[in-house]
């Protein structure tokens, strides 16, 4: 009995401690609830940050790094980024996706390359974790009937189709169109695929020019004088090119050396608009037109993204890599806000009903069809001007008029 009364007796000290604890719990509880609602969504960012595609992967990562502030400004919930380096390897991409999900990633984005993206998509689908593709153009990825895979990037067919449409728009605006072109392309995987795609798609667009000659060259070539000499002797008006960075620089230097300025350089791939091309060639870099998945410089969010990148990485022009990685995160944050939870199914459902009009890429906005593909995306035609890039087509996303024809190389001072 005495023991019982002892334990039942409420001392002043116990009362104070109890009240203190109750107060702490009562005080902390609301914060707990708030924390649960705004706890950051864990996003696994899978990119080839080492290996052959390291440069591109790191460029994409910059797009992810600058996203935080902008998303907050848009009133979207915070994201916690977990980096996964795919090492430019399909095997590693798959195991990294598994690891990120094991580590708690509630949504995945990535992975620049179609092969790596396909490997990740299978893991995401198997685990029921939403996967938003930033860059990968193989059409088959969204043709598999996946329920958790979404792509806000044009497919290869969309890229080629829009490129020809934009060319025709430019020709109509300038009232000038080349009658013939020399088609120069690298003979690596990308170049060969593009060459085949161009041959297949071009007839459908009734282009005003004919391909006078097709010249394939090795991407590791150190001298392209013969190729340029052949192109020049073909007597074509313009150059249609699919190249990489190094060969784009080599081709330009050869044209200068051989005193040949075609009416236009129409590039259907990377190289001609990259920062390194602009910096290396200076005034000689002006003029080429590139037909690429780009951004709409007139959209308010594009201006903010440009400013954020310029602040974080001065001297780097905003590009495809930054834009589409940022937009993948925008999709994730927007879906998280609307879903109100990090439950994968709720997130996937929210992504499916995405309708973002305040975005960066050209077109009406970000929305996905039944296959998880944003088929409303549009490509742009961009032109190099004084170390910067301006958009010249489509009209709806243009911020400059095209300079046509290409200013002669020997009159650039």
């Amino acid at each position, binding site marked *: 009995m005495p023991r019982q009364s002892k334990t039942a007796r409420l001392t002043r000290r116990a009362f104070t401690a109890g009240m203190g604890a109750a107060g702490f719990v009562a005080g902390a509880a609301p914060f707990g609830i708030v924390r649960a609602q705004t706890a950051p969504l864990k996003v696994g960012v899978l990119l080839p940050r080492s290996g052959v595609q390291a440069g591109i992967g*790191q460029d994409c990562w910059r797009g992810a790094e600058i996203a935080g502030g902008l998303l907050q400004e848009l009133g979207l919930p915070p994201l916690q980024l977990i980096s996964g380096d795919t090492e430019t390897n399909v095997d590693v991409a798959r195991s990294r996706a*598994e690891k990120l999900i094991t580590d708690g990633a509630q949504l995945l984005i990535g992975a620049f390359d179609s092969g790596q993206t*396909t490997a990740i*998509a299978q893991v995401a689908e198997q*685990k029921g974790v939403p996967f938003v593709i930033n860059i990968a153009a*193989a059409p088959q990825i969204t043709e598999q009937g996946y*329920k958790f895979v979404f792509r806000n990037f044009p497919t290869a067919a969309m890229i080629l189709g829009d490129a020809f449409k934009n060319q025709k728009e430019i020709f109509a605006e300038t009232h000038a169109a080349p009658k013939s072109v020399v088609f120069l392309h690298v003979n690596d*995987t990308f170049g060969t695929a593009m060459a085949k795609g161009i041959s297949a798609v071009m007839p459908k667009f009734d282009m005003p020019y004919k391909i006078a000659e097709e010249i394939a060259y090795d991407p590791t070539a150190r001298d392209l004088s013969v190729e340029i000499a052949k192109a020049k002797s073909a007597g074509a008006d313009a150059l249609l090119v699919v190249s990489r960075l190094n060969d784009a620089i080599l081709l330009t230097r050869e044209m200068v050396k051989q005193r040949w300025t075609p009416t236009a350089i129409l590039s259907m791939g990377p190289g001609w608009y990259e920062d390194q091309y602009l910096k290396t060639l200076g005034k000689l870099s002006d003029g080429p037109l590139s037909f690429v998945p780009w951004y709409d410089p007139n959209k308010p969010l594009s201006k903010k993204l440009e400013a954020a990148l310029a602040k974080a990485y001065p001297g780097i022009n905003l590009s495809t890599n930054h834009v589409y990685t940022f937009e993948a995160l925008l999709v994730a944050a927007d879906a998280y806000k609307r879903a109100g939870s990090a439950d994968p199914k709720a997130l996937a459902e929210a992504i499916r009903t995405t309708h973002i009009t305040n975005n960066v890429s050209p077109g009406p906005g970000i929305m996905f069809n039944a296959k998880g593909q944003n088929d409303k995306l549009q490509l742009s035609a961009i032109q190099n001007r004084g170390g910067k890039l301006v958009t010249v087509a489509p009209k709806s996303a243009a911020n400059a008029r095209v300079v046509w024809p290409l200013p002669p190389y020997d009159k650039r001072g």
Partner: protein
Amino acid sequence: MIARLLEGMPRAAAVLLALLFALMAAAPLFAGDYLLTVLILILYFAYVGQAWNIMMGFAGQLSLGHALYVGLGAYTAAALFVHFGIGPWIGLAAAVPLCALVGAFVGFLAFRFRVAGVYFAILTIAVAEFARVGFDHLDWTRGSAGLFLPVAQYARNDLWHLRGHPVMFYYILLSATAIAGLGCRALLRSRVGYFWLAIREDEEAARALGIDTFRYKMVAVVISAAMTAFAGVIYAFYYNNLFPEQVFHISRSIEIILGPIVGGIGTLFGPILGAFVLTGLAEMLTGALAALGIDIPGAKQVFYGICLLAVIVALPEGIWPWLSRRLGLGSDKP
């Protein structure tokens, strides 16, 4: 039969092998999906490492283009599946002879015209590169745009069509690795195995003893290529997409040979141990760097390179010969 294959093996080694196999067989019960993925990679490299080891470790013929057989096997089975709905096991029946034939062609070219050593290695690279470029332009396999196998959520494992959960692939590769290990031991203890060793040690002397070196080197290449074809088929149906740039690339060939080199060329268990060490080390480094909060792309590869260098400098014969001596198991390198 297995008892006959294990004949002559130290008792401790047999017990350890049985324990390892039992542990691996039970792994899916306790391993998470991530660990399972890593184990699948380990088994894949252990299997192809053993296939390569037949050529280099047993017969002394350095191939730096084994990705050729992975790619050919993968593309053959995948294309038959995509175009005609032919299941992977029947595809395997086409892939194995095809790879054996290509292996025979490479071997014939080299051995007939006495292309040996470094020149043979270059020839294997050249043929693999030739295949890569060729497949880039082969429309039937979708060229450089990549060949995609249809994928869906499978409620159950379909072993006949190789569609299902990674656990299924894990057990297939575990069985294949074990069978390959036993097969390699059987080969080594056969007449052919002794001829290979004689060729590896001194080809001129072997020929002087009356061994038909051309024939037995051809046998080594054909068996190795045929075995590698199986890995290609599994690769195709596990990853479900094939790009010539990825499957035939020389970096894939280098990945295949690293395991046996680190584990111990010419040994039976070396390729398996090498696969465990390399893939395990890579994953551990990733985990360790993440735990330390180090996010420097490429840092893992630098550490990885240093670790490999250390292994090669300290243990030039590979890890297994040293480890087996330490464990008192004797060497399995004949």
